[in-house]
């Protein structure tokens, strides 16, 4: 178990290093550097000093070494638009993205697994193709457009939910602790629903396939022959075995979920990583954009390691391997 963890973490580290090298390459292929574009009045000698601190005045190989060193020590650069270190900004914003993703992933799994089981049990029937058609509809939808349509629906046509930010700006300061929590949860609803609608389709699809795979197995036939009821078969014999592969799916959906979160955050003004990344584009804040690439790959890698570990915990055969 410990060896598995060590191996996965090492592999993850290699992936992150490759991603870092990639962002470094991209930055150097691009016109200008992190300090070329800004609309603020920063004296030229200050810019020169920054260039010197971030090694931009040195040869390429030295720059690469410098880049790797600063990355390893957690120094992700200096954000020219917010005028503070990128790491400080990320520490403020990333937890909010993680919060959003945590609830979305949790609900996606509950909904996706439920739908997958329903579809598999009524295979070929109305619940099956009906639910699959709806899933495909949402699956084929651009994240930002779904979010916009939810804004239209819930903000203007049925105005019951807040559509931007994470707390009530006007009444928020006077709220008690409990009220603040409720207010925060209400702000979470729409962004989370958008992400769940986008993600649970893929999970339901995998769950359905996994259920159908297990249903073909002989022990299911035996159980049925013994006269075990269909409910007990699908709960005890099929679902328990079909839940395993879904753990891997958690790792696989992470990149698209994170990508979706970027746009959903933008539409709902949820102040997370996606929101500042989108703002950084307009400001040509290279350091911030590149750091968000790196951080999102770190999140994906960590998520995958967690999924692998969960899988090993759930399935003793993997642990032994």
């Amino acid at each position: 178990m410990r060896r598995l963890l060590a191996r996965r973490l090492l592999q993850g580290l290699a992936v992150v290093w490759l991603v870092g090298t990639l962002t470094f390459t991209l930055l150097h292929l691009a016109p200008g550097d992190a300090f070329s574009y800004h609309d603020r009045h920063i004296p030229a000698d200050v810019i020169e000093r920054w260039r010197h601190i971030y090694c931009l005045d040195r040869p390429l190989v030295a720059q690469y070494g410098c880049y790797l060193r600063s990355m390893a020590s957690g120094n992700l650069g200096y954000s020219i638009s917010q005028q503070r270190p990128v790491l400080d900004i990320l520490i403020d914003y990333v937890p909010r993205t993680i919060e959003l993703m945590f609830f979305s992933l949790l609900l996606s799994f509950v909904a996706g697994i439920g739908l997958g089981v329903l579809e598999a049990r009524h295979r070929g029937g109305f619940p099956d193709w009906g639910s699959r058609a709806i899933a495909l509809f949402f699956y084929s939808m651009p994240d930002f457009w779904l979010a916009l349509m939810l804004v239209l629906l819930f903000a203007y046509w049925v105005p019951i939910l807040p559509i931007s930010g994470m707390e009530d700006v006007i009444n928020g300061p006077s709220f008690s602790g409990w009220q603040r929590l409720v207010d925060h949860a209400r702000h979470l609803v729409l962004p989370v629903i958008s992400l769940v609608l986008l993600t649970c389709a893929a999970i339901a699809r995998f769950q359905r396939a996994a259920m159908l795979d297990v249903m073909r197995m002989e022990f299911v036939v035996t159980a049925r022959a013994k006269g075990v009821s269909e409910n007990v078969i699908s709960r005890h014999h099929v679902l328990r075995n079909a839940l395993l592969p879904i753990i891997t799916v958690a790792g696989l959906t992470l990149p698209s979920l994170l990508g979706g979160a970027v746009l959903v955050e933008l539409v709902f003004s949820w102040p997370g990583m996606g929101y500042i990344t989108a703002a950084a584009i307009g400001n040509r804040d290279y350091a911030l954009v590149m750091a968000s690439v790196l951080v999102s790959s770190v999140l994906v890698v960590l998520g995958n390691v967690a999924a692998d570990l969960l899988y090993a915990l759930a399935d003793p055969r993997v642990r032994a391997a």
Partner: protein
Amino acid sequence: MLALRWLSALALIVVLSLLFWRYAHPASIATASRRRAAAARYATHPSAVIALLALLALYVIAALAPWLATHDPIALLPQSFVNHPPSRELLFGTDYVGRDVFSRVLFGTRLSLSIALLATVLSVLLGTAYGLIAGFVGGALDTAMMRLVDAFLAIPRIVLLIAIGALWAPLGVTSLVLILGLTAWFGTSRLVRAEVLSLRERDMVAAARALGARDLAIVRRHVLPNVLTPVIVSATLGVAGVIINEATLSFLGIGISDPAPSLGNIIRDGSPFIATAWWAALFPGLALVITAMAYNLAGDGLRDAMDPRQVDR
């Protein structure tokens, strides 16, 4: 713009004639009958047939956009027509500067379809070549190449696109095609490599090698025809993703920029006025969903038709 139009027409013609050529001249009777069986299986999925018809209709609409459009997609109507709701005259209403949304959606669909098709062709070629080399050569090269793909796949696609787009903004049509194509091949390369690894060990390859066939001949005669099926399926499904990614970039303001219409930037123009002028954001989005759904359904149908083992999984 003109170059893109010719390029996409050329790409479409090349793809269609290649497919037709291979279909009309099957390598053997067995291939011919397998193909007929696949076509018959495809026809048994009503949703797949509808999707295919929808795709045909979309391409016809895109091709005929200049004749179907009721207004100039770029021209501004008089001031009183700003944010005008849908009417008989203005089918989808007008946007915040008074442009006809219906005409813009037509031209936007045209642009999105061309860009997605070209980018997908590019990514399929790249991914197939990459996967072939990695799988067939094997060894350390394979490991290195696949670790690189792992790294690419660890970055959410849209975050990667945003980063590239942000560095080179504003993007032209050509660079947009390049960027979308260059970031869409990772999945294909994995798929091809896995397929090649299993094909490499088959008896037919051993037999060909015993007969003295060279590597290149083996790849051409035995490997490439057999990886074609999964590649076509994943390419069909991939177009849907590319269309959505292009729209996302244009929505963020780093793809196609005003005044040229793309489905994404029409939504971008409409989004600040969503409360009062919902039509400018709703209709281009519907066009996107219909297009992506048609590609997804057609891809699912193709997979079931071409690979009966995979049915109902």
